[in-house]
């Protein structure tokens, strides 16, 4: 069979899949669906039992059969399906299973559920009502033995629980239908031993034999009623999530059934009671069934008598015996249609409303034709229709639309926060429809804007609607794309924490990660649409709207900008997130805690380190320790590391330790330099990324949470007392001590716990802390994964010194005084840029440092700073002044020219350092800082902020040739042919400046 055939099905043709459908009710269900134009696929074993049904169904073009061997291939190839009927009750006719068979069945159900969810289809699990009754009786009666572990009762119980849990987790449209014992003319053998024996006795013997008292209870249903019930309950929406009993209204005892059979003039004429050796001592049937199907509109069509007659006829046919049913014994009934025709409340209302109009028209028909009256009516009608179409409909439509949009928006907010994908999608669809409708309504009222000379308002309104349409279209894709990540965040339970090394769970989240990857194109589209919407809405002229709406429009502008930023960030991050979370293999990351009060190249003095291993979205390794313990361990192992040449020259050290590994300012360099240390410490052969956090970042979180309780600490740790706590521990630190490590591990653990216990809304609330910390470099990250590196680097979150920094100098401090003097420093940076012509640019840069320390006592003291200034490698140095004893070295490193020397500031003093250099366009135009394209000159001024530096004052002055026409000042102030800016350098800054130049 054919996937090919399946994929040719017209989009409007519904597709149903019936698992275990090779039985009488499955056949009737399939046949009914096919008759209604539905495409049906049955999945079952092909054997002598199923053959007769499948051969019959195969005559139809709208039918296909799959053996269980092709189960996976079906779901892999099928593009969609709408309904899935899982006839578990067929499987349950077998009493016992082996473990393999049991597991296979549950696995099949699980996969079927997952595919139903994927296709957003309706699912009906059909199980056995008698088995459920038996289970309940066993539970209620302790005298009865428990079912064997792989019995049909256990299988039903397991499958029903599995389906219900899946429904709760994924909110699929699922119901469980417990069907009674099926009888009818197509049922060759009733699937109930007692009733089967009754029927056999009735047709073959002179006496019906009843074991025991015959008071055991049976629930029966005719095959036609069962089929109709299964379809009715599946199609009805209010059955979603329900467990329903589908059987005749009345229950029957064995005895009453036997009497009924005697009434039908069967072979047997009397009843014989015999002792039941397998009596199960059921004193009272305590079973309370699930709500009946009648509650959902199902009506029993075939009464017991008719059903038994059909069933008896089948049993007689089976033994080739004729049966003369007495006329009197079967009361003939006129067939009752299951279809009732009525009027809805709205229909009744409309009918009542239009009754007089109908009468009016009847009267009109009788009237004679009057041309004058006709034209009057015609003109009136045209006038009324025009009024409706061009006035009333646009106004009324807009009002209705706005109300509906308002409601949908509220519902959408709730459903998004509750991670209800289906509901969110529905709300978005409603929003999209209503925005489209309002847009059409507004189009019809253009004439009003035209005659009132409000074309600007019309244009801005249509733009607002277009922007809204794009936003909603983007949001629709975004919801689908974001769902697996949201689920991952919600479901994530770490297997390890900072205190224990024994995994608490084996759960992995690979499926979520793969789904994130698979949804990337949706995200691409979402980002595109939202980006367009953002541009459109940002360019709206707010002043053209009525004053009452202007504040709302401004809010919308703000909101769409945030949405765009968020979507872009998310889009870019999904390209690497699964890999970073170890979708294919384990990834290992180094975490460094820096203390910025003693500044070093990447942000501060390294105090502690941690290693985290992630695989399948789960934390598989977690370790944290004091960095001086690591140094001590390596020293004991007699490990030696050669420091970089520039470090040897500058700091005059010969051995490199892990605590000094952040010599290079670029975080990627620190990552690669850390690998040998981490390897020798036995924490992994390679690292995939590096994350640095500093004290300020932790303080920001604590400030937001008003402190946090840390085990072992008598007081709540807040942003205020945390610094002093670390200071104190550092002063008391002795190699091998664990006081600081324990405190930091406990603190980190509490922070991680707090973060993981937050819902999406709370996480969004603290997202600004992460964003701010990343921008200000209190939190930094770099990765070997190219996409991840680009993502963090392009946002200035990776402290990377890349090709963007091809003009302004970069100052890197290294506090080598063993104190926290950086807490007492104030700095001023001045940068003077003079663009001589399109080929020459001069830079004059100065740093002034004031040390307000009052004493040479820890943490205060002289600022002993090894200063490095990174400038473009092709720069010609014009002047250097301010280094101690005017001694400095110049060398090339990491693609830059570096001017390095000691630039110290003693307590209570102010010092200045100056450096001037020139950039000239070389023969190779590519890397020069001024870029000419067509008639334009582009100059991207990029200022680098060293991680860990406080906010210091920065001043930029730029002059350019007077013949150049400024097109974009990049945010700097412009006077004549000069640009200037005064600000605090709190993060990396970029100023894209554009001129139009004469030919």
């Amino acid at each position, binding site marked *: 069979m054919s996937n090919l055939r399946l994929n040719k099905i017209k989009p409007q043709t519904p597709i149903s899949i019936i698992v275990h459908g090779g039985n009488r009710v499955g056949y009737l269900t399939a046949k009914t669906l096919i008759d209604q134009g539905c495409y049906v696929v049955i999945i079952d074993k092909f054997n002598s039992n199923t053959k007769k049904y499948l051969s019959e169904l195969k005559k139809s073009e709208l039918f296909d059969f799959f053996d269980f061997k092709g189960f996976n291939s079906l779901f892999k190839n099928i593009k969609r399906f709408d309904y899935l009927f899982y006839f578990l009750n067929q499987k349950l006719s077998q009493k016992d299973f082996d473990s393999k068979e049991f597991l296979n069945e549950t696995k099949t159900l699980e996969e079927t559920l997952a595919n139903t969810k994927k296709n957003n289809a309706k699912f009906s699990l059909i199980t056995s009502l008698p088995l459920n009754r038996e289970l309940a009786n066993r539970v209620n009666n302790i005298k009865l033995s428990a079912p064997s572990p792989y019995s049909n009762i256990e299988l039903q119980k397991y499958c029903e629980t599995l389906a219900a849990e899946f429904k709760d987790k994924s909110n699929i449209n699922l119901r469980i239908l417990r069907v009674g014992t099926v009888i009818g003319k197509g049922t060759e053998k009733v699937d109930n031993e007692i009733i089967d024996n009754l029927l056999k006795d009735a047709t073959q013997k002179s006496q019906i034999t009843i074991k025991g008292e015959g008071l055991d209870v049976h629930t029966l249903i005719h095959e036609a009623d069962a089929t109709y019930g299964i379809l009715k309950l599946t199609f009805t929406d209010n059955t979603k999530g329900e467990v329903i009993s589908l059987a005749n209204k009345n229950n029957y005892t064995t005895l009453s059934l036997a009497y009924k059979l005697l009434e039908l003039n069967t072979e047997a004429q009397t009843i014989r009671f015999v002792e039941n050796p397998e009596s199960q001592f059921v004193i009272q049937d305590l079973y309370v069934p699930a709500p009946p199907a009648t509650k959902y509109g199902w009506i029993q069509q075939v009464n017991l008598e008719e059903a038994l007659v059909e069933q008896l006829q089948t049993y007689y046919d089976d033994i080739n015996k004729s049966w003369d049913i007495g006329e009197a014994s079967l009361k003939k009934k006129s067939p009752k249609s299951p279809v009732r025709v009525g009027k809805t409340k709205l229909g009744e209302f409309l009918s009542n409303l239009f009754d007089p109009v109908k009468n009016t028209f009847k009267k009109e028909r009788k009237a004679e034709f009057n041309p004058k009256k006709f034209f009057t009516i015609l003109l009136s009608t045209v006038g009324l229709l025009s009024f409706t179409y061009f006035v*009333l409909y646009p106004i009324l439509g807009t009002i209705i639309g706005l109300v509906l949009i308002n409601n949908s928006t509220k519902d959408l907010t709730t459903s998004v926060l509750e991670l209800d994908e289906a509901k969110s999608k529905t709300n978005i669809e409603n929003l999209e429809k209503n925005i489209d409708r309002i847009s059409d309504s507004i*189009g019809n009222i253009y004439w009003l*804007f035209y005659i009132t000379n409000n074309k600007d308002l019309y244009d801005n309104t*249509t*733009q607002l609607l277009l922007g809204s349409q794009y936003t909603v279209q983007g949001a629709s894709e975004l919801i689908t794309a974001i769902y697996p990540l949201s689920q991952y965040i919600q479901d994530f339970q770490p297997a390890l924490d900072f205190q224990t090394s024994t995994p608490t769970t084996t759960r992995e989240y690979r499926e979520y990660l793969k789904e994130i990857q698979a949804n990337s*194109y949706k995200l691409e589209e979402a980002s*595109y649409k939202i980006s*367009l919407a953002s541009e459109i809405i940002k360019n709206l002229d707010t002043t053209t709207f009525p004053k009452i709406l202007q504040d709302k429009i401004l809010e919308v502008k703000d909101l769409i900008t945030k949405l765009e930023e968020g979507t872009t960030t998310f889009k870019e991050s999904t390209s690497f997130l699964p890999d970073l979370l170890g979708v294919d293999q384990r990834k290992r990351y180094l975490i460094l805690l820096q203390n910025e009060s003693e500044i070093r190249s990447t942000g501060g003095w390294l105090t502690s380190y941690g290693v985290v291993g992630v695989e399948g979205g789960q934390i598989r390794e977690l370790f944290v320790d004091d960095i001086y313990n690591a140094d001590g361990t390596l020293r004991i192992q007699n490990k030696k590391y050669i420091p970089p*040449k520039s470090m040897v020259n500058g700091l005059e050290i010969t051995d490199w330790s892990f605590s000094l590994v952040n010599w290079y300012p670029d975080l990627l360099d620190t990552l690669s330099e850390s690998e040998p240390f981490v390897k020798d410490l036995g924490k992994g052969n390679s690292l995939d990324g590096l994350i640095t956090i500093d004290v300020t970042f932790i303080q920001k979180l604590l400030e937001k949470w008003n402190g946090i309780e840390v085990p072992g600490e008598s007081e709540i740790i807040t942003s205020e007392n945390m610094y002093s706590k670390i200071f104190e521990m550092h002063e008391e630190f002795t190699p091998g001590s664990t006081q600081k490590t324990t405190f930091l591990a406990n603190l980190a653990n509490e922070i991680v716990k707090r973060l993981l216990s937050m819902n999406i809304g709370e996480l969004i609330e603290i997202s600004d802390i992460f964003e701010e910390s990343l921008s200000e470099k209190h939190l930094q990250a770099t990765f070997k994964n190219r996409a991840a590196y680009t993502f963090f680097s392009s946002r200035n979150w990776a402290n990377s010194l890349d090709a963007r920094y091809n003009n302004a100098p970069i100052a890197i401090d290294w506090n080598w005084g063993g104190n926290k003097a950086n807490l007492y420093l104030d700095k001023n940076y001045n940068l003077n840029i003079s663009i001589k012509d399109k080929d020459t640019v001069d830079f004059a840069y100065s740093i002034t440092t004031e040390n307000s320390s009052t004493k040479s006592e820890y943490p205060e003291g002289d600022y002993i700073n090894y200063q490095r200034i990174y400038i473009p490698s092709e720069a010609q140095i014009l002047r250097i002044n301010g280094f101690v004893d005017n001694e400095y070295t110049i060398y090339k*490193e990491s693609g830059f020219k570096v001017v390095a020397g000691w630039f110290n500031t003693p307590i209570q003093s102010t010092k200045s350092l100056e450096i001037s250099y020139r950039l000239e366009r070389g023969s190779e135009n590519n890397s020069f800082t001024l870029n000419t394209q067509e008639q334009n000159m582009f100059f991207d001024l990029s200022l680098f902020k060293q991680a860990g530096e406080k906010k210091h004052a920065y001043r930029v002055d730029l002059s350019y040739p007077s013949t150049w026409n400024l097109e974009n000042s990049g945010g700097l102030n412009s006077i004549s042919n000069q640009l200037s800016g005064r600000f605090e350098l709190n993060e990396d800054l970029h100023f894209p400046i554009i001129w139009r130049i004469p030919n």
Partner: protein
Amino acid sequence: MTNSKKLLFIILGIFLLSVLLYFLPLNSLLGKIPILDRFYNNTSLEIVTQKGKAKVWIDGKDYGETPTTVQDLPEGSYLVELEKISDEKFFYEKQSIQITLTRNTSARIDLEIGPQNILHGVIIYYTPIKTSSDNGMLTVISNVDGAKVFLDKEFLKASPISNLSLRENQYQVKVTAEGHEEIDVPIVISKNYSLNLKTYHFPIPTTFDTLEEENE
């Protein structure tokens, strides 16, 4: 029936008609009426891949290989999937592109599929707009953030640009991005439509210069 009753029914009628007009999907219904449907299902989509062929699927349906032009699709949003035909099976990833087709317009996908999921080229399509002016509009978005957009050699601004009002005419659009190959493409702006131009740029391979460490 009295006049006041008639008036009441007329008022009620036009209110109901207004509400009905709001909820009635007029375009969708008209698009299903024979003869009229040809005015509603007349989009065309041209798909071209540079330097090699690709298999084409639209909403899961196989449309053969590039170059191909698919005509008479109903307006709406479509998922176009392109898989480069190559001996290196795992070198090129299948590309999924969402595109919106508007009636009476044509759209074009002109891409080169590169390894590691990178693309170079353009996607062009029109969407209808409502405006009081006689101009059409231009929207440009690049996969490289901050790419520079030039219109007839004049620098416009950095991407994205949305709904820039332009007179009906043919223009030349150039999009450049640092470290990436540029795109130069002719476009036609039409009244009552916004032309959407999506550009993708191959990165220019980096050449490394060895810097010797030296002291001056």
